[in-house]
């Protein structure tokens, strides 16, 4: 009986090893990563002397499972930036090795991914992509003093420690900005909010929104929750918002559910102003969605692929050429994240032969000194707390296109548009 187990265990181990040895090289050769067998060999060693001439940057995010779409976008965006930097001669002449590990959107797996990167002698980490894994990784990376920059971990705790920074806005920040924007531009007096109570991102924004709403000149007349298990039918929530006479409905969640909300609202002849957050970006690309329904939808976003900005145009074109799809904000955050790490490495005079802890100490200070012009913001700077300081862009959909609302004057014209439903360019 015992023999059986031993044999089966040995066979599985043998099988696993053969696969690793066999596929490691071919799999990673394309993007210049260290191969799988290197990862094993480097375990336990101090800085391997052979790899002293490249910067090793790791990434953590879900590339399998339900949240895979975010992780893959981050991976692609980061790899695009790494490729560009390497082609332009690297950072201070040193190339970047980028190694992205899967965390399946699970805190435990994220720590495993982090440890895998540690075995690879990682010097800086871009990740984790989603909030809960990011908090778990933050807790262990603090002990090891390894620098981490999360492209899209929005929960407050993600940047709790001083080795952690983020590219995106935090959840409360988005809720606060949304409420301020609605209040300052007098978009409505009665507001309803629909949110996903099972989602950290959505409920985080919602709570900050309601808190700030108390200071603004509008009233939250209905707050309706849904969960991940019931995110296909919103008629109850919409009916309640309609009965309460809400002129504006706040939708702090992702575009896939928002497209259903818009469709169902149109079906019941309810047409308030819809207001969303950065998760709304991408709604026009939903298959089978009538873009006309999204007309006059307003949302805060750090990134719009249709912007006229030269840098964004280049990023979008390159990304589309490489991966065959339009980049979303996750890809843009990751792209900026890699450039931020590059800028910090240059500002901190970091050399590739330093240990991860020394790199972290240097990057921690350098991050607060750099200013980068990225695709998600111009003049992006960081505070020591880890929060980025950038202004959210307000985007309005008109005639089936995203349009950036730049300033107050333009915002005024948004209101006019909302009233007359003329939908012309905000500029």
């Amino acid at each position, binding site marked *: *009986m*015992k*023999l*059986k*187990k031993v044999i*089966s*265990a040995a*066979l*599985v181990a043998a*099988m*696993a090893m053969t*696969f*690793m040895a066999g*596929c*490691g090289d071919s*799999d*990673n050769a394309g993007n210049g990563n260290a*191969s*799988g067998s290197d*990862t*094993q060999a480097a*375990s*336990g060693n101090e800085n391997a002397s052979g790899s002293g001439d490249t910067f090793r940057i790791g990434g953590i995010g879900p*590339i*399998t*499972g339900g949240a895979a779409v975010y992780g893959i976008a981050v991976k692609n965006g980061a790899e695009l930036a790494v490729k560009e930097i390497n082609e332009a001669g690297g950072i201070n002449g040193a190339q970047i090795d980028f190694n992205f*590990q*899967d965390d*399946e*959107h*699970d*805190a*435990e797996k994220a*720590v*495993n*991914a*982090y*440890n*895998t990167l*540690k*075995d690879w002698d990682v010097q800086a980490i871009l990740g984790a992509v989603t909030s*809960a894994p990011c*908090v*778990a990784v*933050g*807790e*262990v990376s603090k002990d090891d003093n390894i620098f981490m920059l999360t492209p899209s971990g929005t*929960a407050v*705790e993600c940047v709790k420690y001083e080795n952690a920074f983020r590219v995106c806005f935090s959840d409360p920040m988005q809720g606060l900005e949304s409420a301020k924007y609605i209040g300052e531009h007098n978009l409505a007096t009665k507001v309803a909010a629909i949110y996903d*109570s*099972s*989602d*950290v991102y959505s*409920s985080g924004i*919602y*709570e900050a929104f*309601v*808190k700030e709403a108390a200071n603004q000149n509008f009233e939250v007349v209905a707050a309706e*929750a849904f*969960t991940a298990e019931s995110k296909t039918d919103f008629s109850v929530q919409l009916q309640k918002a309609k009965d309460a006479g809400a002129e504006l409905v706040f939708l702090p969640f992702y575009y896939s559910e928002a497209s259903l909300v818009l469709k169902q609202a149109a079906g019941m002849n309810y047409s308030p102003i819809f207001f969303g957050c950065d998760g709304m970006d991408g709604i026009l690309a939903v298959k089978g969605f009538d873009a006309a329904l999204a007309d006059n939808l307003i949302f805060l976003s750090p990134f719009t692929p249709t912007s006229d900005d030269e840098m964004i145009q280049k990023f979008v074109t390159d990304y589309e050429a490489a991966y065959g799809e339009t980049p979303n904000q996750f890809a843009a955050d990751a792209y900026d994240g890699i450039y931020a790490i590059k800028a910090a490495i240059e500002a901190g005079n970091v050399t590739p032969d330093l240990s991860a802890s020394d790199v972290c100490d240097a990057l921690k200070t350098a991050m607060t000194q750099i200013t980068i012009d990225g695709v998600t913001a111009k003049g992006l700077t960081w505070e020591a707390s880890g929060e980025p300081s950038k202004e959210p862009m307000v985007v309005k959909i008109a005639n089936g296109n995203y349009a950036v609302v730049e300033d107050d004057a333009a915002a005024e014209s948004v209101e006019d548009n909302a009233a007359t439903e003329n939908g012309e360019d905000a500029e």
Partner: protein
Amino acid sequence: MRRMKKINKTTKSNLITYAIVIALFAAVQILTSAGAISSLLQGLLVPLCAYIILAVSLNLTVGILGELSLGHAGFMCVGAFTSAFFSKCTAELIPVAGVRYLFALLIGAAAAGLCGILVGIPALRLKGDYLAIVTLAFGEIIKNVVNILFIGRDSEGFHFSTKDSLSLGLLPDGEVIVNGPQGITGTPKDSTFTVGVILILVTLFIVLNLIHSRSGRAIMAIRDNRIAAESIGINVTKYKLMAFSISAALAGVGGVIYAHNLATLTAQPKNFGYNMSIMILVFVVLGGIGNIRGSILAAIVLTLLPELLRGLSDYRMLIYAVVLIAMMLFNWSPKAIEWRERHSAKFKRKKQKEV
């Protein structure tokens, strides 16, 4: 004389099981101090302990009691959340990690055991596969209850809500401890590998002694033939409930280890839902129903496998599934068993000849 020998046989078998665990522990400790273990493996050690305890405890229900439980992750969830809540609340009150952790373990196990009794009382009175249905529902209910639960604390005491953290009405000095779907953040990291191994040994001690006790024989008699067991005066419900609640309490211990190893604890379908229950059941089935050593081994192999396959990146999960099927066939298909027996017989004969 014959009786002595018989007792020695079970004791010997038990001792071998303990020895395997201790030997593995010693090997890992030596390798760690020699610096030969990667950080990945080091990070996996504590979760491994939790999964081994879960697999062994589920084997008590599935293998010894002969009832199917599909909600083992639910009991784990109860243990994890009650203990994490306790540790978070008393982090300042009891600064000594060891004492706090001991209380957390007791609370987690007691809460999970209590849930086991509550679920078991109605379900275990019935004949048939009702326990599977009830535990399946229990696991999902617990996950959803935790996801709407908001608990905060301020100078006035505890506040509860099932709506959102704003309606807790906390004073400015208050803090939210259980934050609905965002779970508990900042649980002290008290689980260590050594404590985990001690808990595995305690679990094994409880389970193995139960199996070989008078109660254990009664439980197995119910499994083998309920009518016959009833006819000789065994209280069927009592013994079923005993095995099931012990199994649930031990799952709670697994949850405590899990919760005190990560800084964030959220009840996702992935870690406390149906998937996890099935995952633990896979450990048990693959290791052999009723075979405690098999459960330990299967839990180790199946937890390590997806991590060791990381080098394959995109194909990782695909290969994992294929390996799982291959292992299942190799272990349990009649032809494979026959082939193995033939070869191991040859091996044994050769050995005997040499002797």
